[in-house]
């Protein structure tokens, strides 16, 4: 009896060991930002590394061309997680990926801190509150299934305004980008990428994918235009 017990235990241990030995599968790059804490890099150190960036994003963080994003005044944590996403492949871009791969984690933090500390671009002009873009941004379009952008990006597009009173599980607010002062062509391209499912490498992208899925080309255009006026 005892022998049988021991024998079966032995057999099972062997089987279990085999089980453990099975190799783990490789994973597709995916950045889960849901537990991302706000980051603080060294602004000064970041400035010393920013020269390469300036080629496209401008020395003051205002992009040289509207197809590139303005980095000035952007959320520090957002900038960092985007650099990291480029580095690990969760976000694809032929230019940014090779550049990001050369950066250390500290570099990315510092660069993020540097650009975040720069003053954002002031609004180019004022949009009408009754414009389609403004309505979409502030009210969404329920018939189409478009939630208001302001919910996460702030009523002024300057990032979310979390309610301190809430004790519910919170999104990683710091990873949500500031939209105010962004370049319309860049915003349009990103909305299109979300819509098409080509920018889905982070957990935040999954949210935007759902939102952009319900936007049509005209919606995206008016939204991009509206955001640039904030």
């Amino acid at each position: 009896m005892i022998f049988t017990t021991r024998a079966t235990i032995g057999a099972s241990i062997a089987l279990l060991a085999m089980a453990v030995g099975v190799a783990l599968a490789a994973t597709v790059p995916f950045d889960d930002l849901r537990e991302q804490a706000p980051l603080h890099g060294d602004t000064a150190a970041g400035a010393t590394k920013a020269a390469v960036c300036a080629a496209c994003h401008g020395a003051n963080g205002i992009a040289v061309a509207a197809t590139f994003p303005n980095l000035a005044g952007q959320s520090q944590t957002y900038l960092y997680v985007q650099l990291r996403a480029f580095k690990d492949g969760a976000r694809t871009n032929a230019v940014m990926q090779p550049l990001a791969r050369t950066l250390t984690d500290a570099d990315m933090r510092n660069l993020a801190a540097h650009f975040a500390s720069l003053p954002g671009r002031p609004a180019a002009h004022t949009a009408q509150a009754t414009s389609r873009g403004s309505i979409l941004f502030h009210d969404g379009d329920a018939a189409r299934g478009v939630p208001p952008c302001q919910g996460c990006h702030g009523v002024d597009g300057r990032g979310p305004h979390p309610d301190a009173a809430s004790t519910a599980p919170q999104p990683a607010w710091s990873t949500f980008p500031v939209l105010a002062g962004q370049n319309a062509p860049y915003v349009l391209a990103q909305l299109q990428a979300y819509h098409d499912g080509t920018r889905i490498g982070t957990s935040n992208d999954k949210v935007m994918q759902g939102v952009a899925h319900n936007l049509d080309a005209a919606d995206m255009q008016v939204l991009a235009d509206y955001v640039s006026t904030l």
Partner: protein
Amino acid sequence: MRKMLAASLTIAITASLVGSRALADSSDSARVGDIQYGNALDPTGWAPLAWPDPRGFSWLHAGMMRTPSGVLYPYPPQRDEQSSPLYRNSDWVYSGFLQIGYLHVGGDTHAEFFRQYTGWKSGIALGLFALYADNPKTGQYVEFRGSRLSGDDQYYRLRAGQYGKYKIEGFYRDIPHAVSTNAYPLWNGVGSTNLTLPAPLVPGGSTPAEVAAVANTRPRQTIGLTRQRAGLSFEDNFYRDWTGYVSIVNEQRSGDRLWGGPMFLNYILRDNGGALETVRPIDFTTTNVSMGLRDVGTVWQFQLNYTGSFFRNHKDELNYQSPFALTNVVGVPQVANIQQGQFSLEPDNDYHNLRAELSRSLKWNGQFSLAAAWGTMRQNDPLLPPVTCTGTGGIFISPSADYTFNCANWNTTAALSQQTANARIDTGLLDARITLHPSPKFGWHAGLRWYREDNKTNYLAFNPLTGQYGYIAENGSQGSIIPGQIGIFDPRNPLYASYVTQVRAIPFGYTDTVFDTGIDWRVSENNTLNLTYSFDRDQPKYRERKLVNEQRIKLGWVDRALGKATLRLDYEFAYRNGGPYNYDPYAPFYSTSLPGFVTPPLGNVAFTTDAMRKYDLSNRIEHKLHATLIYPIGDTATFSAIAYATRDDYGAAIGRQATRNRGFDVSWDWQPSPMTSMSANLGRADSSLDFTNVADNEDVTGAPGRDNPSLGGPLFPLANQWQGLDHERDYNAGLTFRRDFGRVRADLGYTYTYALGRIGYVFASPGALPITQQPFVDGVGNAFPDNHYHINTLQLGFDITFSRTFGMRVFDLFETGSFADWHYLGLQDNLVIDHRIYTDLGPQPHYSANLVGVMLNVKL
């Protein structure tokens, strides 16, 4: 596979009725039984499908939400990519899972506690077969689950319907129950209605040594039973707000159980009498039917329900042979050989219950409800004759002291005053309650409930053949050992004219009226107080008290924001008293109440002491305290604890004195991510119960004072008082761990149970002990050896994924236990002790068993 699905769908669709708007939903939680389908391999019936989705619940935030009380919801299981269209262009999609493999049990696989309710068996086992199909367009669905460990441990469950419209459920299941795996029945015919002695034993003619010699050669057997249940139910929202439902469940219960067999006491008379542990058959069929209607309107809600239960026992009696000779203590040697015993087993019975409930919503978020129910329990089985003996029983001392009886006058149903039991109890229930919430902060409720059990059974033990009352005690054995103690009363015969015996059935019944009222008061956003008062007026019939009142006050405090915690604290106080206590309320049912009864010169021996208070009726003061705390730790863990104490003090000089219960349980649950979860729990419970009793002074039963029921009187002297003290302590601990490594998932579970029980005793003098034990008074100590029950169970499993479709599960379950119970102490050496025969050696003192399983997982 497709065919099977198509068949299931056909069932669903055929049953589909063109529905109306509906609010129909299931009322399972209102019906008794068959709610849970699982087995020891997977108690949830769901485990293989419960592995969390690594993505979690929301892209917006990490972790899981907590319940309003603060417990983390488990991460949702991964089932996303399984549904496939049933066939081309079908609206139906399906998903499924099959786990099948091989189980090997090793070690002491027959240990009682290892297989108490589990049919573990080496061989092919179906872990789980689950199939889900639904039509998102029409809301129709079909679900099937099944599992099979062995032929007597399996379940299959089908649910189909259309959301909110109709539902069909069906099941088949076998549930095993091992009563003893360590039994050595002496008799042949175990499981039948006739237990016969194996050769060379002779009924009424074998010595204990001869019986013991045969007992030692008997094979080990398992005593137990299997419940085979099948059921079908249908619920349909057939018109507007109206829903109807009907269900039928049939159970066949087969097997055997340990039983008894009296041939009069053996302890006072060595080499005499007989106490036999026999085995009785279990062969029951029970059919339960439930049907009803309900109307759920916005203002009125109504339901009408009928429940019927029909029990049939296919083995109405148990006959057994006793190998021992009986010896009369005086007189010439007995002339009848009393060696055959008989039991009536449970009669067939029918039960009907009709219940109507009507509720009306009131303003102030209130509700008024009225309920009424009527029920009846009936049985009318043919009665067996009072004895099965032949010849002459009893004792002949002299012609004027002829205590014999002719078996022929008693071994026939002609000896009965009625041929069938004609037993019936009707029940009635009326309940009215009202609840009002004039403001969100304040609620008030009150209820009045009346319930009655009216027992209409009327049986007179009168033998028309002899004109005598009463019955033949213990198969005739008692009267064949002690002269006159046959069990009969005969006013015409001075030998029996003073004999106290029960001559009527006692139709116990009661009327219980409960009034309760209470308030809920939300003191602040997260603080609620509630106070309830209830008055329970119980009026038992033919019991020691005609009136028992219990008043109860409950005070509850719920704080949902004590720091981060939720605290629920309850205190309850109850006070029970009642009318006068009559220590012998049964006189009307005894021969003493019959005309012609002659009270002997010394009076009747007191029935019991008048100081006795039965604990279901005695005065009582009760305090209960209960606290539940749920404390969230960070975003990923929860600590919860409960603590409780109960204290009952009974107003009794003799009888139950007091009970105490207290304990705590703490647990910690942690789920840092969908990939990992862990929990630990620890608990301890202590209880004590003490009671007193008083041994009667046997010397007085034939002397003056024998009719004195007083504690401290000659029959119940203070010196014969004794006290029993029960202490029990339970420790419980558990640990679970689950980790998803991607292709491999591991799960670990450990359970620890340790229970200790000790019965202690103190006594005023050796007079409290049986005469036979008084010589050993110095050695009796003050307690029985400790009982214990100690189980460790460890389970370790790995799930390995090979492809989207295939995977395997390898697991090991190791269980070890130890057990001690003084009831069985010493039986290992001898199952036959003088005129006592035992069958069950009791659960194994030590065991260890191991289960290994290798299962193939297939996602369908």
